[in-house]
């Protein structure tokens, strides 16, 4: 035995290595015959056992009113609260004095999906959505403008409800 090797006091009573090996082989063979549990992702996106939670915070979505205009009034709360500083908002004002966003961009790459923008929004305009498949081929494509945010159709996140902390 080499110098400095600590010899452990291993249990040597009541232990059968041959038996343990055979038991292990039986176990692995049983697993070999069991049904596969992997969800075949691109084909199957949700099952009875697994579906995306309603309070999932994913790709943003801007809601629109009945006339198809963005609900956003460019109050500036969301860029103010955004911890990742990923929302770019340039406010504008029409003849009637209504504020609206001239530019509204969210960089989904910088976003940490905390959901504060949805929580802080007084008009319930910007939302985080129940959606996660937002891969792109270039970094630029991750900057969603107002038109693209409004065009999203996925359900919006319910966020965390203090009265129902486990989401049941």
């Amino acid at each position: 035995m080499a110098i400095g090797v600590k010899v452990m006091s291993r249990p040597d009573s009541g232990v059968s290595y041959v038996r343990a090996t055979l038991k292990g082989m039986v176990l692995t063979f049983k697993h070999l015959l069991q049904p596969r549990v992997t969800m075949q992702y691109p084909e199957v996106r949700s099952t009875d056992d697994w579906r995306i939670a309603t309070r999932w915070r994913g790709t943003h979505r801007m809601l629109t009113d009945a006339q198809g205009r963005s609900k956003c009034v460019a109050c500036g709360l969301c860029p103010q609260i955004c911890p990742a500083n990923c929302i770019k908002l340039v406010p504008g004002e029409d003849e009637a004095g209504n504020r609206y966003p001239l530019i509204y961009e969210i960089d989904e790459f910088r976003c940490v999906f905390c959901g504060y923008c949805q929580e802080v929004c007084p008009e319930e305009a910007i939302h985080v959505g129940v959606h996660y498949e937002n891969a792109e081929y270039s970094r630029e494509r991750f900057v969603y403008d107002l038109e693209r945010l409004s065009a999203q159709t996925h359900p919006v996140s319910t966020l965390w409800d203090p009265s129902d902390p486990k989401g049941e």
Partner: protein
Amino acid sequence: MTPEMKGFLLFSSLKMLAVFTMTMVGVALMTLMERKVAGWIQNRPGPNRVGPTGLLQPVADGIKNFIKEETTPAAANRSLYTIAPAITFIPAMMLMAVIPLAAPLPLAVDFTLPVLGRFVYTGDLPMVVADLPIGFLFILAFSSLGVYGVALAGWASNSKYSLLGGLRASAQMISYEVALGLSLVPILLLSGNVAFSEIIRNQQEGLWYIAPLFLSFFVFLISGFAETNRLPFDLPEAEAELVAGYHSEYSAMKFSLFMIAEFAHILTISAMVTTLFFGGWDIPFTSWDEQGGVAQTLATHLAFFAKTFFWIFFVMWIRWTLPRFRYDQLMSLGWKVMLPLALVYIVVIAGAIWALDVLAPTISPTARAGALFLLNLPIGWGVFFFLDRGRIVQGVGQRAVPIRAGAEG
């Protein structure tokens, strides 16, 4: 050149082509099978994206390996670094040449081709590339050549991980080579021949050697695992401590050659277990397969394939069951258990065969093998008793006793 020589050359070339193709395709499918079995044992489906149920995965892997960039470490010994994969790959490919794949095919052909002339072949065509009279000695010699490639790959890469992997591989393979070789001596004693065809014929007359030579089989199987560097003995490429061992620095097709060699070794070890201990291409409980003919050749080939397939599966099954040995445990198992066991077993079997020859010289081969089998029962029991520190007979699958008293919450 006589027509007979030309006929021999023609059929030998055909057999070489067939065996090489079968080995390469088999290796490719084994890489898929390994990943499938790994997946199934972990309740996953395994690779299933390329082709129907993932069947074309080896093709995709092959194409990937061909078009990947070949890298050479800056300070590597370039010539040795390049030649090492070939040194590992070529002996691994040569091993299948001596293993009989099916019953001999009786042939009587006489035909004339334009330009090439007349070809004649009469007699039994052995279903093996080279029916060498030195049989498994050839396999022992060539399988141990692979260690040069591994050791050179580790040394030439100029990387500490590769070097350690290469050193471990050489030490391990040389250690277990001894036990592997000695475990085959009882076969030599019992069959009186090292040629595979004779060994198979002996097993057909008596019992498969698994019965009369069970401990040889046990030592051979374990040494075979160590020789192929498979789990639980894959210390040369122990990824937790050595990155990937001796092929850490290799990429693309050079790396692929190491993988092919490893899988070809598994194939050879499985085929050898089949041939030496499970009757080779013999179909049990019938002598129909010994009559010779096309149907017999095909059926015996299927039997050989099924047996080999089982042992390939067994190797993979063990891989996903047992964890890796510690290096000193590996060495003490090899030198302190397997080697003495093989030596003592040679003495016991030699004595038993001598006693049988003296006491009952006219006994039938089956009865002789049966008597040896009865002798194996107490020896096997004793060996497992010793290996298991006397626990196997108590059994009952007790829980391990905690080292510290009161450790259990």
